[in-house]
């Protein structure tokens, strides 16, 4: 049981990293949102599995939040915004897909090297989880850097938060306070982002961050 429990947790956490990679090379916003929904779904499964292996029923709440909120509500809402703005086919990468993927591989390697080395004392499940979680966090950061579009930056930020949830659930016995707060912060963050996106739309007629950058240069 221990063996298969570990393998499944390992597989789910690994798939989350894989999803982060798939996000990196998406060329269209609507496709990116689909992948993000999948990302959140994998997270929900992973958290639910952790709840089962750790015998920690409160983690099912976290899994449910991830499933309902991140895998369904947010992608749907973002899709509406994107379609209303008519930008569902657009995406602008700062650099090419190839380079982004190479950087991503480098970041994953880095997080494996760092986390596996420093957690040699911890139990293997938590170790692997932490290493994968850091990879997801770093890939989320990379996505925020390589995308110019405000919506895809938000998606990058949310997949980064998914990585944090993975880390928090992997840390056995971590108080519930934190998980709820993570979910809650995403909620607030989303409201804030939503407000901003609409305001940006009002003022700029585009959610392209370059428009803002140009504007700022004139101001300086």
């Amino acid at each position, binding site marked *: 049981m221990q063996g298969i429990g570990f393998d499944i947790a390992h597989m789910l956490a690994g798939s989350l990293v894989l999803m982060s990679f798939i996000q990196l090379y998406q060329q269209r916003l609507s496709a990116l949102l689909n992948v993000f929904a999948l990302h959140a779904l994998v997270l929900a499964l992973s958290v639910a599995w952790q709840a089962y292996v750790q015998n920690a029923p409160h983690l099912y709440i976290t899994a449910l939040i991830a499933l309902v909120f991140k895998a369904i509500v947010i992608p749907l809402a973002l899709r509406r915004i994107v379609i209303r703005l008519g930008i569902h086919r657009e995406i602008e990468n700062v650099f090419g897909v190839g380079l982004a993927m190479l950087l991503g591989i480098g970041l994953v390697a880095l997080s494996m090297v760092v986390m596996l080395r420093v957690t040699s*004392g911890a139990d293997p499940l938590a170790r692997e989880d932490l290493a994968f979680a*850091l990879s997801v966090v770093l890939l989320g950061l990379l996505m925020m850097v390589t995308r110019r579009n*405000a919506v895809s930056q938000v998606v990058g930020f949310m997949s980064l938060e998914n990585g944090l949830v993975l880390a928090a659930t992997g840390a056995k016995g971590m108080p519930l306070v934190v998980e709820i*707060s993570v979910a809650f912060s995403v909620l607030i963050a989303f409201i804030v982002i939503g407000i901003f996106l609409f305001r940006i739309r009002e*003022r700029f007629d585009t959610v392209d961050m370059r428009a803002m950058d140009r504007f700022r240069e004139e101001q300086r």
Partner: protein
Amino acid sequence: MTIDALTGVLLIPALTAGLLAVLPGYRLTSRLNMLAAFLTFLTAVSLFFFEPVSGRYLLVDDLNKVFIVLTTFVAFTTSGFSASYIGHEIETGRLKPNHVRFYHAMYQVLMFAMNLALIANNIGLMWVAIELATLTTVLMVGIYRTHEALEAAWKYFILGSVGIALALFGTILIYMAARPVIGEGPDAMVWTILITKAANFDPDLLNVAFVFLLLGYGTKVGLAPLHAWLPDAHAEGPTPISAVLSGLLLNVALYALLRFKMLLALNPVAIAPGPLMVTMGLMSAVFAAFMLYSRRDIKRMFAYSSIEHMGIIVFAFGMGGPLANFAGLLHMTMHSLTKSAIFFAVGHIAQIKGTQKIADLGGLTISHPVLGWGLVAGVVAIAGLPPMGIFMSEFLVVSSTFARAPWLVLILVIAILVALGGLFAKLNTIAFGEPRGSNAPAQASYVPMFAHLAIVFAAGIYMPPALVTGFQNVSRLLG
């Protein structure tokens, strides 16, 4: 949970925020805002006389008493400044009444969040509080809904969230390090328990955790190269918020960093957190000092000056030892008071002249003598000239660390001098020469500004022994 001074500093702002969210009329609400801030300040001061018992969620010790009194004091004076500032914004129509209601409620939510971050005894709770403080300030920075304000708020939001996310990862790692020693469950996040067991934590995990915490909370402190949000947020938000950001929120993030530094210092095998902090502090100070020269916006310029001073403070705490910690603590206090006084002056100036561009300001000492000379006094203080308090604290930073790291201190001194040059070059255009722009009479509240400057001036000449002993106790605590 019993109601004592500790819960008081949370309850007063929380209840007032609810009240302010529904009450109409800015005159009433701005007074209520002031009254609540004043009551919170009194409650915070009472911590010195009747120290409540620390529980599992809230704690009070010498370190956070200093921070919380400073925070509530500046919050109170800023609410006074804010009342007259907001009055003017309403008259000119830059803010609508419902925006003002939102603004006042957010002001109190921010106070609540900052106080909670300072007294939280749980590292998870502290993180939540800092996140809440970040979100409220994001909303306030964007309140004018102009291009620049939205862009600044967006940038602040993205960078702040990334910083906050990294800090959470660091917090999780601290829990992982504590779990084998303390055991599973909430105890492994309680500060007072962590600190007694820190010597047995896994040092490698602590090291990695500190790197994440330094990058995460360091973003909120405004350390270079993670400072990019800070000048925009300062320049585009309402000026009272610039004062609160510079004077208080940066300190709160610094407080979190100091707490974790104490934790690491107790573990004999973990890396020394000092050198990392020294490097980032020096980098920020040097970088910001040079950036002062090419600024065209007055609020942006003082934002860079804040980065410089946070750099000096982090440098002092990074060097460590009772004397350098004392200097850092004093410098932090003086900087908070001086920088908020400067923003009070700048806020009124920008309102009168209708612009923040340095090129369009001029001859303020002639057209508006009180404001102009107030600004001059503030800049003299912030640049570190005697006899003001910042001179004292900068002198202490330099003298207490010179014997240990002469070359590093040399770099710091150069940064301070470069910053002095930059500030005075700009001050010359702003305060002296031919008056430019509008000559409208100032409807300003001078009391908060001069109260701060008077304290800074007094501290440069004479420090009450009680204050010195208090700061010394904290410095020893910081190690």
